[in-house]
């Protein structure tokens, strides 16, 4: 497999119906690294994240204009099927959302079994083990793979969702505040996992928690909004150390030092 190319976003405008939610995003995201997106509530960081796998448009009336290239291919090209985009750009949500009617094992295999793809029992077993190990969950669940995924703790459910996402072998994993509903210990487990995942995947994570951004990310982007009803902007993106010690923009400095607003 060729090394993933950067995600390249050019002049992206994101709309909800007539409302321009995020304006003029230009950014390049490096492969096999963790990029954190921070900013106040409502600034459009989650909205932007969801345009990277065309999940934004599942909301009625929502659409995006501009260019988002993944591996040099514009995912907003008219000929591109969003289903194929989402197979290559996986997503982990704010709240763990394992499929309630499925066992742990079936949850991991859910994405793999889509599109009527058949998989042999031994290949499935191997994939389940690898994905769960990849999500640091294997040792906790290996004896109860046939139990419902909803029976796990919140942190385990979120790692199950990560296992489900990496089981389809995406190139990019998007994480939308994956720890916001978790306790500190579960959060730590996920953060450790993110460190390991970046060996193989390009990760973009939205977080409300600036300490988390500084702990897990290589680069950090700061989104801000001028006021209610105005579009959000990507103010700056730089190496995480630089953003947190020596940001070039006054707004970023105000935000990270808590003098925002």
């Amino acid at each position, binding site marked *: 497999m060729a090394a993933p190319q950067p995600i390249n976003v050019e002049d992206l405008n994101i709309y909800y119906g007539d409302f321009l939610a995020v304006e003029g995003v230009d950014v390049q995201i490096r492969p096999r690294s963790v990029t954190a997106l921070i900013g106040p509530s409502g600034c459009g960081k989650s909205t932007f994240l969801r345009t990277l796998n065309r999940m934004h448009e*599942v909301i009625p009336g929502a659409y995006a204009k501009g260019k988002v290239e993944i591996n040099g291919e514009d995912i907003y090209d008219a000929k591109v099927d969003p*289903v194929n985009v989402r197979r290559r750009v*996986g997503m982990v949500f704010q709240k763990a959302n394992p499929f*309630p*009617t499925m066992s742990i094992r079936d949850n991991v295999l859910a994405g793999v079994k*889509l599109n009527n793809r058949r998989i042999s029992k031994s290949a499935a077993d191997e994939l389940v083990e690898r994905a769960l190990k990849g999500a640091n969950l294997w040792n906790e669940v290996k004896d109860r793979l046939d139990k419902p995924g909803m029976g796990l703790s919140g942190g385990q459910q979120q790692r199950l969702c990560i296992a489900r996402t990496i089981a389809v072998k995406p190139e990019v994993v998007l994480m939308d505040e994956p720890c916001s509903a978790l306790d500190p210990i579960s959060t730590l487990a996920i953060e450790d996992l993110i460190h390991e995942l970046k060996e193989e995947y390009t990760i973009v994570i939205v977080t409300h928690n600036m300490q988390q951004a500084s702990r897990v990310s290589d680069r950090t982007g700061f989104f801000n909004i001028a006021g209610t009803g105005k579009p959000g902007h990507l103010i700056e993106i730089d190496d995480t150390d630089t953003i947190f010690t020596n940001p070039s923009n006054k707004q970023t400095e105000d935000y990270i030092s808590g003098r925002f607003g």
Partner: protein
Amino acid sequence: MSTADIEPDAASAPPASMKSGGRRFGDALFNALSVGSGLLIFVTLAAVAIFLTLESLPAIIASREFSGSADFSLIEYSLPLVFGTVLASAIALVIAIPISLGIALFISHFAPRRLASALGYMIDLLAAVPSVVYGLWGGVWLVPKLEPLYVFLNTYFGWIPLFAGEPTAPMRNLASASVVLAVMVLPIITAVSREVFLQTPRLQEEAALALGATRWETIRTVVLPFGRGGVVAASMLGLGRALGETMAVLMILAPGATFSLHILEVGRHNSIAANIASKQAEASGVDMSLLIFTGLVLFVLTFVINAIARWIVARSGPKS
């Protein structure tokens, strides 16, 4: 009232006593009204059951006395009616459920929003049409229209018992009655299923979409499993309506009293409700009692089906 976080001395601080001198009048009134309404349900149900049992006793006793005689047997009289009722309802469900689920999914997940609400409104209207109107429409308009289809089924699929026999025009057969019943139960099944499908957690659907599921795959992996209990409940509601439906069957079906599976043949079947409606005006004495006994059978039948439905819904509810 939650008192766990109130300091003990905070409660004793105000001079006025917290004790209330008896219950407030409004509360008492509302309490009595709501308990009364609840009890009324039991009383009504019990009254119906007792009426049916008592009034059918003469027929039961008469049947005992005449047992052995071929002229009169309670069981021989009732069973073909039960058979006709259940068969007509079952066929109606087989026709209605797939169409209802299709419409419900179209409204909840495929149609553009404006079309969806218009369609939903039309479905609700369909539910409001009185059954007499369906009976008229079915008997006068639909029955002749179905004739070619029946001839076709009989000619090419006559080897299937259901379509065997000799259909003769006018096609006032069980199949026609079932088709009209299907139209009548379709709105209720559609409406309930649609509501259930719309309640599918957004996060679940997004989970499937984010894994690269197509719309149909999202429905298959998330929406249908989530809605399964609701769809069963909806179907049972429809079944309940089909079992008890009187006018449409009465106006369409040429009655008979056999255990024939040949649903295209005329004059082979009848349903309990239609049979009661057609005969009760002239019946008296033991004949009336006999009709009431079939009513009791229908009552028990719907009761049992509801119980089964509840059991299925409880069993297939979301696992936690």
